[in-house]
């Protein structure tokens, strides 16, 4: 939707913006950094990667997962355990976490993607709960259970993951990479196809496509990127707790995707930043945080279904048509 709008031939200006938008995003975070501090901005960026991965599944393919913390936790635990037992090389740990995300997507995919709607949401939640149990109780010897465990990474060349500026630039680079990848993906024929699955899966089947395979691939991409975000978060914090896999926290990413507008990558980044600002700063002043979150969600669902980006692009569309 954003592409059609922004690459309107009458409007060379927005075409230019569409091509160089990642510079705008990078610039935005660089402006944000001195305002709120480097550590926090890194945190924001990593959450945005998570929201982007979630948006591919929810916004573009229309599958609301209520258990995405599982995949974030998979990445986080994979990176931590790799660092603890195999090698302290941060890049190998990242690679291992990505493979873990890929593996869990491949294994759970055939079960999960056959469901739609509420069933999809709930089966993810159920798996999330099983994962939480495994991390908290069954493998507490390795994961540290409720206390979590520290994750230390060795230096690799000039990549020292104890320095804050380096973490910031790596995170920003990863965000741009993920953003670029998803942008190419959703404007490709494949992207059109998954958007069609959201609209009407039966018709896509009727055209002769094996929708199961496309849904599975999309699910795997989403879990892999989410695990990547989880691993980066561990690199950033240097420790890992069960909070990374807690099923009670699933609503965060849904909220972030909704405020920005679930059908847009810009919306995902905007929503991620907005959610982090609200939860980092406003939560201090809002004593009833959950109630605030609930009321905000109700307002979004009943009044602004398309989120901030959808709201703005609708306005712009009206202006162009006028």
């Amino acid at each position, binding site marked *: 939707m954003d592409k059609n709008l922004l690459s309107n031939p009458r409007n060379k200006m927005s075409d230019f913006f569409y091509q160089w938008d990642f510079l705008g995003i990078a610039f935005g975070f660089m402006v944000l950094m001195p305002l709120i501090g480097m550590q926090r901005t890194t945190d924001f960026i990593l959450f945005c990667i998570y929201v982007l991965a979630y948006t591919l599944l929810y916004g573009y393919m229309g599958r609301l997962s209520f258990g995405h913390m599982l995949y974030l936790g998979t990445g986080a635990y994979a990176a931590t355990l790799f660092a603890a037992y195999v090698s302290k090389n941060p890049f190998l740990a990242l690679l291992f976490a990505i493979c873990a995300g890929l593996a869990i997507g491949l294994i759970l995919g055939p079960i999960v993607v056959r469901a739609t709607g509420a069933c999809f949401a709930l089966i993810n939640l159920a798996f999330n709960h*099983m994962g939480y149990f495994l991390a908290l109780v069954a493998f507490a010897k390795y994961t540290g259970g409720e206390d979590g465990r520290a994750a230390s990474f060795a230096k690799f060349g000039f990549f020292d993951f104890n320095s804050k500026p380096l973490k910031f630039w790596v995170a920003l680079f990863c965000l741009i990479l993920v953003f670029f990848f998803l942008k190419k993906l959703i404007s490709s024929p494949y992207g059109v196809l998954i958007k069609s699955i959201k609209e009407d899966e039966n018709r896509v089947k009727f055209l002769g496509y094996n929708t199961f395979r496309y849904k599975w691939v999309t699910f795997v991409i989403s879990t892999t990127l989410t695990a990547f975000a989880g691993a980066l978060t561990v690199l950033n914090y240097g420790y890992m707790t069960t909070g990374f896999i807690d099923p009670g926290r699933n609503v965060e990413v849904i909220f972030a995707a909704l405020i920005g507008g679930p059908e847009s990558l810009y919306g995902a980044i905007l929503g991620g930043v907005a959610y982090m600002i609200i939860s980092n700063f406003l939560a201090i002043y809002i004593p009833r945080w959950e109630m605030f979150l609930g009321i905000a969600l109700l307002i979004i669902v009943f009044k602004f279904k398309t989120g901030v980006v959808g709201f703005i692009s609708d306005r712009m569309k009206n202006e162009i048509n006028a």
Partner: protein
Amino acid sequence: MVQIMIPINTIAYGLTIGGILYIISIGLSLTFGTMRIVNFAHPIAYTLGAYFLITLLPFIKGKFFWGALISVLAIIPIGYFIERYVIRKLYGVAIDYAIIATYAVFLIGIDLIKWIWGTNPIPLSDPIGREIILFSVPLPLYRVTVIGISLAIYLCLWLFFKKSIVGKIVVAALEDKDAVRSLGINVNRYFSFVFVLGSCLAGLGGVLYAPITSVHPYMGFMILLLSFAVVIVGGLGNLQGTFFSAFGLGMVIAITGRYWPPASEAMVFVVMAVVLIFRPIEV
């Protein structure tokens, strides 16, 4: 003697949990079957039921029965309010928005409970406190009563849906909403009734479960997941299925709990996942 003593305890525990799960899950199953909405706000009625009970007990000098009755009746306006101002606006909306909106109601409800009653768990003592001897095994009478109540509710609902006109309309609407509407029946009014009935039963579930566990604001979260598992295993909108799957999963919890207590709830989700693999539900 010892060998059979433990299994009977486990079976009784499983049936108690199953009975409570059944009472709570009916509302969820009915709401889904009639309105095609997965109601994440359902455990609010459950939690409120338990909290109303502990608030009332000092005033009525510990008479559990009256406390339970008033608590369940107090759920009626709350159920109606949620139905009227949230659920009814979600007809025909994409199912993901319905999930998010009801989850938002759940968050608001939990926060209100934390605001009013605080976050500390409140324990509640067994209201009967006596034990009966069954096959020479002592069982708390309260748990046996809970099993009895759930069976009575099952029978009442069966009669209600078989014999009364309101029940028949609801059953017909579960099958085909539009056909019922074309007979000139205002189905939404019946849905509203069904929703309030489901909420009251969830409140009753909370009241009955309160003396077995402790009362705290997040008690609804786990129950929500468990009753979803019940409804999915039993089939959404299938009242018979809900009954059998509730007791089945109650037994799963009890038996797993006997060998490895922390795994008892995770095991329910294993069962649910297996069921979903073999019988995916089109929603």
